[in-house]
């Protein structure tokens, strides 16, 4: 077999989409597609990462991402250990660096880190001694989410080239939005971001995206509508007056969907707030690929673990 440049994932970190080329994203999606079938089997297990140890180090609450990484590791026969901040020595005052150094001394083969502070996985990668995978760091990046989104879109659209994409909601606090913008940009998408002015970062045009505050305008002609979760705790910070006002202007319902292309798809990273950013009719309807995203999440994380810890030396 001739080694293509694509296979050189071994020992690398996955900190953000910015580290990946378009070809590498496609390579990851192709690899993940081969793992989909495993989850349909009666015996959902491959021996590929037998003897490898994956540590999930989560400093923020998470069900989907943590479970998804855990299932992904276990379906590849890796030993997966979950550590959450609440149950770790962090509560005894241990620094983040000491926590990582101690875990690194136990020789894991991959470290998945979620942390509220942007850049934490990058910092950890300097001394972890094994591949570090960013499981979400503050408002910075969530690369495996963007990769599973690309996988889900490719399944429906075959190609990622030149799509009209609307990203709607709390763009300000969204690492999902940032990682997806970075990914879509590699495939020449026309991206529109939409949300209240208070939840829109300044200078978004520097990303090469269009900004609007009108959901109808954002969805007009869209191939992909990417909804973001509205965190109700933002209301306490005075960023929007009430959930009712938010949903009256930014909820994706069937009336708004009429503006999209007839074969448009709706994604959401979850957990969804029904009736706030997305109506149940749309969330459960024909445009929605929200549960496909969750299924693909396991396959994509299998691909990431396989390529980072199982590849060539």
């Amino acid at each position, binding site marked *: 077999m001739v080694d293509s440049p694509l296979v050189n994932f071994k020992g690398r970190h996955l900190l953000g989409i910015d580290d990946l080329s378009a070809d590498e994203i496609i390579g990851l999606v192709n690899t993940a597609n*081969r793992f989909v079938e495993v989850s349909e089997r009666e015996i959902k297990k491959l021996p590929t990462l037998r003897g490898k140890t994956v540590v999930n180090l989560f400093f923020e609450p998470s069900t989907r991402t943590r479970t998804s990484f855990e299932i992904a590791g276990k379906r590849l026969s890796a030993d997966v250990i979950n550590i959450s901040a609440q149950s770790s020595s962090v509560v005894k005052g241990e620094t983040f660096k000491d926590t990582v150094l101690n875990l690194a001394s136990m020789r894991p083969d991959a470290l998945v880190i979620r942390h509220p502070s942007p850049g934490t996985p990058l910092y950890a990668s300097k001394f972890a001694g094994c591949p570090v995978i960013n499981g979400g760091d503050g408002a910075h990046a969530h690369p495996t989410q963007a990769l599973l989104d690309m996988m889900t879109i490719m399944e429906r659209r075959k190609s990622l080239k030149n799509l009209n994409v609307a990203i709607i909601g709390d763009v300000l606090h969204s690492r999902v939005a940032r990682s997806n913008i970075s990914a879509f940009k590699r495939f020449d998408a026309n991206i529109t971001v939409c949300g209240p002015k208070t939840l829109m970062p300044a200078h978004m045009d520097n990303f090469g995206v269009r900004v609007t505050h009108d959901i109808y305008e954002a969805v007009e002609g869209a191939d992909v509508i990417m909804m973001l979760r509205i965190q109700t705790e933002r209301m306490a910070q005075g960023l929007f007056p009430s959930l009712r006002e938010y949903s009256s202007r930014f909820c994706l319902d069937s009336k708004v969907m009429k503006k999209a292309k007839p074969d448009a798809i709706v994604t959401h990273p979850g957990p969804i707030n029904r009736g706030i950013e997305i109506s149940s009719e749309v969330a459960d309807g024909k445009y929605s690929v929200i549960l496909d995203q969750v299924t693909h999440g396991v396959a994509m994380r299998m691909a990431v673990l396989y390529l980072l810890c199982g590849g060539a030396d």
Partner: protein
Amino acid sequence: MKNDGASAKVVLSAPDIGRTLARLAHEITEKNPDCSNLVLVGIITRGVPLAARLSEKIKEINGIEIPVGALDVTFYRDDLARKGPNLNASPTNITFDITGKTVILVDDVLFTGRSIRAAIDAIMDLGRPGKIQLAALLDRGHRELPIRADYIGKNIPTSRDERVMVKLREVDGEDAVFVTGAENG
């Protein structure tokens, strides 16, 4: 790829491959008189078209349609760390139940036996076949595991550093088997 160099030697032509597969199909039907219990599983990549062709030939012989599946053994290999992953292969696609069946694994070249070991493990994770048999278009020797084929198209003695190149029209646009000398460097 440098397969057309002066040292490339054709060991099977397109008609040779057709005749060889016809013979293998006959051997399979002789050894398994009750063909209704057979399934053919090609090892990705070139085992898959070979399995499909064997299925056609068996149908010509006795009219029985043998189901064909595709098996990706990458994730079962023991030499991943040396070869590196292949990002572009296709996934396993076996749409029928293999439990109780006679599974005939089909591969293009039988060499060290490590792919076949991986394939047997992969099959066992999908069900419990009654029997597993192995058909290979070529056996080039140099086994590293105690594995043998039930049906062999052609034995070709090779040295370890020679390369055996199988081309099939479904994948490569032509049918031929070459042996090329050790590549320089």
